[in-house]
């Protein structure tokens, strides 16, 4: 125990937009602590002068001609909407 506290877990849950019940906090804290403790071993690796990578391919920004193409219709974009109004997605009051 010690890498992550219950307060940290509550903070991270807020950032991740996840509601976590009081009862779960304890269990999650101890599981995350164990996992983070394991993966933190990377901090001991000497990476002096090593460039961090995010993709294995030498990828460049891919551009295409600015020609309009067919895309899905507004109707089908709304097909999976939990709630809709006036051809838009309806959500509860924004707080």
């Amino acid at each position, binding site marked *: 125990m010690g890498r992550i506290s219950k307060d940290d877990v509550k903070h991270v849950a807020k950032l*991740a937009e996840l509601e976590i019940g009081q009862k779960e906090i304890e269990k*999650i804290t101890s599981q995350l602590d164990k996992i*983070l403790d*394991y993966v933190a071993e*990377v901090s001991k690796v000497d990476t002096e002068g090593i460039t961090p990578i995010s993709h*294995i391919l030498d990828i460049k920004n891919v551009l295409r001609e600015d020609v309009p193409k067919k895309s899905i219709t507004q109707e089908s974009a709304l097909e999976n909407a939990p709630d809709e109004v006036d051809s838009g997605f309806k959500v509860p009051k924004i707080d």
Partner: protein
Amino acid sequence: METYYLTAHQLRDKLKKKEISCSEITKSSYRRIEEVEDKVNSFIRLEKESALLKAKEVDALIASGGSVEDLTGIPVAVKDNICTKNITTTCASKILKNYVPVYNASVIEKLESRNYILLGKSNMDEFAMGSSSENSHFGPVRNPWDVNRVPGGSSGGPAAAVAAGEAICALGSDTGGSIRQPASLCGIVGLKPTYGMVSRYGLVAFASSLDQIGPLARDVEDCALMLNVICGHDENDSTSINKEIPDYRSFLKPDIKDLKIGVPSELMVEGIDGEVKEKILKVISMAEDMGAEVEEISIPSLKHALSVYYIIAPSEASSNLSRFDGVRYGYRNTEARTLRKMYRKSRAEGFGDEVKRRIMIGTYCLSAGYYDEYYEKARRVRTLIINDFKKAFSKFDVLLSPTSPTTAFKIGEKTEDPLTMYLSDICTIPVNLAGLPAISIPAGLSKDGLPIGVQVIGNVLREDNILRVAYSLEKAIGFNDRPGL
């Protein structure tokens, strides 16, 4: 006549010679599904009605002189994180339980152009996060070799379906071993192509820099012919490689005489089961007998692969899965009165425990104050791993290792301890970090009658080498056991 245990290339030949119809093939596969699906639970959804209709269409096409190509009329299972137009695609999650894609993944378009038969959508670990296919909203998948054991994961459904004879072949996805590890535990062949060879358009994203779609089948030849169909550039995927696709079947030669095979010692020691090790050593001596040069090699940075993966994959996942907010699609909690509460409750109720755990780890690793220590550091060590692989491939054509450190474990055995579960990916994860192609083929059975798999890893874009070695070893090993289901 039952055809469910034949391969796609055998069935293609029979269809060509008009010895059998596509309807007969499809009906046989569904008969098998009815027989064993209760025991394995490898499907989330079956598409029997539309499949039989499609089979009739294909038969009419063939009768009127239409050509029989690879996968024409072949019953295929598709992992449920690959979007199928107008057919529910759930990712085995409550949050997408009723999600019906309005478009096909690019791989599905490619299969459809060959007139394949979609049997149904396969069960899996929720959002492909897991190594046992126990993390499914639709119940765990069971291993056809022993239904009290896991089939591996996350493509446990596709692997179990192919092993049990429910599907001729299947499409899965592999982020840290999710095709190869279940293939190994179920005694079939699974291949993860070079990152960028198969379009990810329409694959629900888990970790975008690691995810890759690939085939699961009962032999190496079927994997090669599936690659022929699914590989290729796609403008809808900005990471798609724009290169000419070879005929992958042309590499299926039982000859490895001039090849150099490296055996990374880091993948052969810690935690590897004695029986697994023994089998791999036997395969190594077979390779030597065929004239390959085999040598042990040390790749020190592989020791850190698991840590790097469990920082990078959850980080990418936490970002990718932020789209599930109950606004545009998926599950929504309808009691929350404000937007934020709706987000939090929908996500809390819609995601399972493992998915939440990874979102939390990823969010933490990317959060202010920890980003440099975890995410940035992991990306640097990932560079080291890639460099080390490059060095290894300057000396060797392929690398060989176990696919999984153990045979299939018992259902429930590792669910309480996530870290122990993570360790079952130790041999497969390094491959994804470096974007390499790799294949798992059956090496034989343990004393308990459980399959053991051997992994062949190739350099970037060297699918030719792994297919050649896998095909040669497959012939030498001669594995033809079937689960007694």
